[in-house]
């Protein structure tokens, strides 16, 4: 699952009893690890950041017989020699937390690519079970695996499953239960070629310190120049220099780079095992999903498909169902008719002073404004968006979209992978800013953060903007065109100006899969919970700040200040207030504009200028705080300064251009 920055907060009930047993789930991304995790643990789950990192790890408890096991879902890893932060965390869990049992989950049809990791994991000498998941896809591809023979060769239990339909989960639970009592563990080890074995044992013999993991594993990692194990050697060895010398001597004795040689040897070992257990049949005929997948990546059909997804997903479902039906009901019926009048009467009755009443109710009160906005307007819109987003995520559409846009994204300093945070930004820019973590380089993270702050309107904002332009198709088209143009131009300039290395694009494309409803719902629920926990307090804070600003008259001063640039771009001074409130909530601004327009103060041209400027204008307070946390305050303030300047410069230009052509 895409990281969300849940923070160190347990938001589901965790069973109090201490675990007797620790199980770690390990595997590549896209092998159905989290589905198996959910199937084993049920409802008792916590998601937290691994200490000192931004990587999220899910932990849950599960009952096996009369024992309680703690189940850890480690981040996706391709190899025990880590490259990404996720892999470092995953390895760290295996080597430092020392689970009692490792479940290695593989995609059965890709077993020849994934079995080398099984062999690697066996070096840790922790009891293991190999789970052959997604067996249905393997069968469709005509792959037959002799499970019993594979068990015999590896010396560990092998369990075939189809986790999405629950097939094989009962057997898996039984095998886990069997293994929980066992102390004996006799793994079969991969013998490398004599040259490598000699090098490994020379390093292994030179190790004198105490390690949490077998010395052979340490030796293998040292040979492959792993910096973390290198640091451990320095702290645990009485004579680290001697070990380091041994390692460099052993490395020098090898024909090829150790990473290359060891990887190739393991692959060869895996292939020779698989030769004995795999047979192939004629693959069944091409499936509809493959055809659909091809249509998605061919630009001629893929771009229309993308537009269709945006139209149906964003306009019809998020706009129509979320912003329309749900908001009308919760806001219009529940709040306007029942909640607001009731709480207003309540506070007016218990608090005699109007100033203090204003803190809770009336136009800008915590409840009538803050809570109402959060619960009645934003939550339904964002919730529906998250639902659509989770369906797109689970179906495997994003990697295909990423490959479709990679070329364009390279021009704006990003790679195709960045499409995930940018699309998420159309839902909530604050959450999207956190998800920029999936980008590899700092340069890409900065550019993506900047573009999210500038030119990606969130769902709450474009919900109001679409309402603003109701019946004005040309105005709406001008707005959309200008925002898209600014997005591309700003990205292009940022790619020239932000230093750092050029991004590369490399993504696995999983097969298209029909999303599992329970998984989609639990992801959506998790994201909505995050939203409520992280962003809801900001609404309250915003209401309080607005109240203080109004009471102390600081706002009057700020509004006066902002009215100068506002007048410069040809807008009535009344709109200055809208910009100020826009910072507290991106959509407040748009909503405020809606009021100004209803009073008939804006011409069509002014409406376009105001909507463009406001969309580009600084993000809401929640996004601002998250930007500071993720990118650092210096970068954040620089981004905000640039964003404010660009928004008014573009507003000014659009105003002149519209006047010149005599629009509105």
């Amino acid at each position: 699952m895409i990281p969300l920055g849940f923070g160190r907060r347990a938001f589901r009930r965790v069973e109090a009893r201490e675990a007797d047993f620790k199980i770690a789930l390990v595997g590549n991304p896209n092998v159905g690890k989290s589905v198996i995790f959910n199937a084993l643990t049920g409802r008792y789950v916590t998601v937290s950041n691994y200490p000192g990192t931004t990587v999220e790890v899910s932990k849950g408890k599960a009952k096996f017989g009369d024992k309680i096991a703690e189940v850890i879902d480690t981040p996706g890893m391709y190899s025990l020699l880590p490259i990404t932060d996720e892999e470092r965390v995953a390895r760290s869990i295996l080597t430092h937390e020392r689970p009692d049992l490792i479940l290695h989950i593989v995609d059965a049809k890709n077993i020849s690519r994934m079995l080398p990791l099984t062999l690697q994991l066996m070096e840790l000498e922790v009891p293991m079970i190999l789970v052959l998941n997604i067996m249905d896809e393997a069968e469709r591809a005509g792959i037959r695996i002799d499970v019993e023979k594979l068990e015999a060769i590896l010396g560990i239990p092998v369990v075939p499953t189809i986790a999405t339909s629950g097939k094989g989960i009962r057997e898996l639970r039984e095998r886990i239960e069997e293994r929980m009592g066992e102390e004996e563990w006799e793994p079969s080890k991969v013998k490398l070629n004599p040259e490598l074995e000699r090098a490994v044992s020379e390093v292994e013999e030179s190790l004198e310190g105490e390690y949490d993991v077998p010395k052979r594993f340490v030796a293998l990692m040292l040979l492959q120049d792993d910096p973390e194990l290198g640091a451990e050697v320095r702290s645990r060895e009485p004579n680290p220099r001697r070990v380091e010398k041994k390692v460099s001597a052993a490395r020098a004795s090898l024909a090829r780079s150790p990473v290359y040689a060891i990887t190739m040897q393991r692959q060869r070992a895996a292939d020779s095992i698989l030769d004995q257990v795999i047979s192939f049949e004629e693959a069944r005929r091409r499936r509809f999903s493959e055809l659909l997948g091809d249509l998605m990546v061919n630009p001629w059909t893929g771009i229309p498909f993308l537009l269709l997804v945006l139209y149906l997903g964003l306009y019809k479902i998020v706009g129509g169902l979320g912003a329309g039906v749900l908001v009308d009901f919760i806001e219009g019926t529940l709040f306007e008719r029942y909640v607001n009048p009731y709480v207003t009467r309540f506070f007016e009755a218990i608090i005699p002073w109007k100033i203090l009443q204003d803190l809770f109710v009336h136009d800008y009160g915590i409840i009538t404004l803050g809570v109402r906005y959060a619960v009645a307007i934003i939550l339904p819109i964002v919730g529906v968006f998250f639902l659509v987003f989770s369906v797109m995520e689970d179906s495997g559409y994003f990697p295909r979209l990423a490959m479709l846009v990679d070329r364009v994204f390279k021009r704006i300093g990003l790679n195709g992978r960045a499409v995930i945070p940018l699309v998420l930004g159309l839902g909530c820019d604050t959450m999207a800013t956190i998800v920029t973590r999936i980008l590899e380089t700092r340069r890409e993270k900065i550019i993506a953060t900047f573009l999210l702050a500038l030119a990606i309107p969130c769902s709450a904002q474009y919900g109001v903007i679409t309402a603003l332009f109701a019946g004005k198709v040309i105005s709406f088209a001008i707005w959309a065109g200008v925002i898209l143009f600014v997005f591309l131009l700003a990205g292009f300039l940022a790619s020239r100006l932000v230093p750092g290395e050029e991004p590369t694009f490399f993504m696995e494309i999983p097969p298209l899969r029909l999303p599992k409803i329970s998984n989609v719902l639990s992801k959506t629920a998790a994201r909505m919970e995050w939203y409520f926990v992280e962003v809801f307090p900001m609404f309250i804070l915003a209401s309080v700040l607005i109240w203080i600003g109004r009471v102390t008259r600081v706002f009057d001063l700020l509004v006066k200040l902002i009215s100068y640039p506002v007048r410069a771009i040809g807008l009535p001074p009344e709109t200055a207030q809208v910009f100020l409130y826009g910072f507290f909530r991106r959509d407040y601004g748009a909503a405020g504009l809606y009021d100004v327009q209803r009073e008939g103060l804006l011409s069509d041209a002014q409406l376009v200028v105001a909507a463009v400027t406001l969309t580009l204008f600084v993000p809401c307070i929640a996004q601002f705080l998250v930007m500071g946390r993720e990118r650092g305050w210096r970068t954040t303030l620089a981004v905000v300064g640039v964003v404010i300047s660009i928004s008014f410069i573009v507003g000014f230009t659009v105003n002149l251009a519209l006047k010149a052509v005599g629009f509105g």
Partner: protein
Amino acid sequence: MAVQVSNQAQELLERIWLETEEKGREEVELDRLGISPEDGALEELIRLGLVNVSEGVLKLTPQGYEEAKSAIRRHRLAERLLVDVLETGYQLLEERACKFEHLLFEGIDEKICTLLGHPKVCPHGNPIPPGRCCLEAKEGERVVAPLSDLKPGDKGKIAYLQASSSKELQKLMAMGVLPGAPIELKRRFPSYVFKVGYTEYAVDKRVADQIYVRITD
């Protein structure tokens, strides 16, 4: 080239090339190379008109430049051949490459270069100066070619990876893109999509340039 240059003189030319072309110096002092003005190889180069020496400072002539480029090219092609095809270890590489390069006479270097798919860098990551064959390269002749030169539907086995850093190599290998694995190119546009085993990957041109394929179909 008509001139016959002795092996020692070729080695010296290569060292001068490294100093001038790859470290960006205009000229090289004899002291820097640690040779005396009476050095046999140096005298040979002067006699053949490949270098000029004045006041202890050495400079390649245009003809010397061509000769040095070709010597460097032969040396690095030899390294590629030794590592990729003959699986020679790095320890022995330097010594063997120095012997091997002298066997790559005019013409043979082009054949080796074509066989290897016109590689752009040596196993250490230093650039291989392109020869005539690289500029005229035609697809049909190739035995090994970078993935980025394949047509959709082309199949083969991964011959070797030419990643620009060990980290990139590690990443490719960890994701299952390994020498010896069967590979098929499915799309070239808008990104390269290829299949290794039962997994599909999408990459940009930079990554596709690093995967060399022995074409079978």
